[in-house]
């Protein structure tokens, strides 16, 4: 089977500073990969590079998505092709209503897929059905996009967008940070409902806590821009108990 995503010897820098130093990662359809690591290890960079953030310079290496060269694709084309990044810090855009934004992204996707756009009524029905599943307050539709949303509301709005767009490759960038335990459970349930053989996840997190709810198939430990260890969910538990120091000492683990 052809992998969904194949990252080969990826080196990335920002403003001359090297952040990723040779990442190799292969993700097949239906797999959930957790990426853990201390602050500054390059976890968020990886997600942002996959989504196409332009501040980063690709020094060398390649990323193939469904066999295509992802790095040559524009940001919007990546999204339309099935890449979704749930932002660590969702951007607030006053003046753009959340409901209009959601309509725009749903219809952009449908047009890309050659499907007819949804009318206002179908749209509302579709959005509402997904909001109920993640216990999201409908009033958030009327507000400006993420503007003045609480941390939990912003993260739910990210999960809502993911649910609506049904991506093939979803990257959750520290979606658990700043969430209380109830919000965390709801967000994790939203993700679990989306798990399917046709969809893969990269779950970037600093804490093992989220992985109690989203059980990963693989856990990778990132440090200084390299994957130092790969294991199953027990690796995450070990990190929680022992911290990251033992990995830095060179005790590399492979599944």
């Amino acid at each position, binding site marked *: 089977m052809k992998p969904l995503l194949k990252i080969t010897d990826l080196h990335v820098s920002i403003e001359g500073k090297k952040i990723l130093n040779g990442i190799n990662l292969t993700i097949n359809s239906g797999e959930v990969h957790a990426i853990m690591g201390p602050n500054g290890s390059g976890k968020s960079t990886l997600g942002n590079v996959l*989504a196409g953030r332009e*501040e980063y310079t690709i020094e060398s290496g390649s990323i193939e998505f469904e066999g295509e060269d992802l790095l040559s694709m524009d940001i919007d084309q990546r999204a339309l092709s099935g890449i979704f990044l749930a932002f660590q810090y969702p951007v607030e855009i006053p003046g753009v209503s959340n409901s209009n934004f959601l309509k725009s992204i749903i219809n*952009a996707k449908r047009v890309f897929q050659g499907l007819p756009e949804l009318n206002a009524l179908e749209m509302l029905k579709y959005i509402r059905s997904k909001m109920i599943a993640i216990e999201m307050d409908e009033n958030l539709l009327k507000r400006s996009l993420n503007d003045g949303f609480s941390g939990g509301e912003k993260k739910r709005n990210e999960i809502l967008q993911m649910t609506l767009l049904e991506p093939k490759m979803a990257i959750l960038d520290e979606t658990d940070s700043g969430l209380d335990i109830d919000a965390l459970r709801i967000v994790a349930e939203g993700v679990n409902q989306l798990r399917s053989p046709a969809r893969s996840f990269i779950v970037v997190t600093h804490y093992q806590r989220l992985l109690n709810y989203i059980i990963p198939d693989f856990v990778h430990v990132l440090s200084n821009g390299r994957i130092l260890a790969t294991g199953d969910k027990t690796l995450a538990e070990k990190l929680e108990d022992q911290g990251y120091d033992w990995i830095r000492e060179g005790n590399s683990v492979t599944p």
Partner: protein
Amino acid sequence: MAEQEKIMEQIDTAFHDLESGLNGKTGTPMHAFLKHAYSVLKQIEFPGRKHEDWKYTPVQRLMALPYKLPRTTAQYKVTELAGLESYIIPVLNGKTDVASLHPDLKTAGIKISMLQEAMEDTRLKSIFNKWLNPERPDSNQAFEFLNFTFQSGGFFLEIPKHLILEKPIEIHFIHDDPDVSFSHPLYFVHAGSGSSITLIERFEKNIASTVADQAGLINALGFYHLDHNASIRHIKWQDLPAAQSLVYKLALSQEKDSRFNSLGIDFGGETIRNNVEVELEGSNTYTSLQAGFLAQARQSMDHQTRINHKVPHCESHELYKGIIDGQASAAFNGKVYVHPDAQKTNAYQQNDTLVLSPHAVMNSKPQLEIFADDVKCSHGATIGQLDDKSMFYLMARGISAPAARHILKAAFLAQVLDSMEVEPLRDHIRSRMTLDI
């Protein structure tokens, strides 16, 4: 000053054309007024690049065109706005024909008279005379006296005491002529005590025009007076043809407890100069000036505001938001004077601009002069580009780069446009400026 002489020569020719067209009407108070205005105009010069208040408006270039007086146009049409019912006052090539206005205006209690007649009415004249005879006129008033000099179809609009109009009044300003010409709308709005109206000024293209677009200048001058507790919601929508320019002045005086809410949107035209001058004569007034503009190609849009807080307990708000693209330029100069007696003044001013092209230019100058010690005043100015993080966020959801830019531009102006209560006009403006999301 060779340029100045050339300008005055053209004006002289146009003035003699006007006089020769007066036929039997020479020697009237109106004719005396024109002659007086012209004699003042000859003594003052049009402001040049060195004039602090005019350096961002290309006055010499604007006045270098060989303007004639326009012919009379009979047919006009502006975009019909579904769902908008209003009382309409057309100003065609600077002139209003009061006799042919729809009888609904009279039925609703709106009093309107031609300026010629108003000039012979001592009661009305006492109201507006001070505006027509400013003390020590200087370059700042050049366009005003140009307007007075060519005055021939202005009107006086009176909203009687306690009249509350549900439907808005619309003034349609149309300039349409086969030759290069200028027109000079002049109007007075006197809102009686306790009255409340919505007044919409639309500067638009004549879509029933039979001639090709031609360069032209509209030099419009509106004087507003709000009596005790009067309220005006004022909207200005400027969507002129690309070859036309506008010099616009709104002079406002407010008596106690009155409220003036203004929302101006500039989109069309070539060189646009907006002057808003506010005199707060009575306490406990509220004044809000909001404006949004989109300057593209080689458009120039210069906004000058002056709010004179002369008495205590008045509140003024200004919010000017503009987007400048292409080789366009724009300016905002917001003057707020708080006189020593104007204690407990609240005055807030904000000017935010997006500059989207390396060839576009914005000049922003807040100018607050405060001589009272117990006041709340603030001002702020920002100039920036579209936010990279917002662009990335939208595109990471599958929105194309042009669509994302479009959404962010619309969002930027939404803060101003969303507050427009006349929905059919707001929707029309959004679609004209392609600010729909």
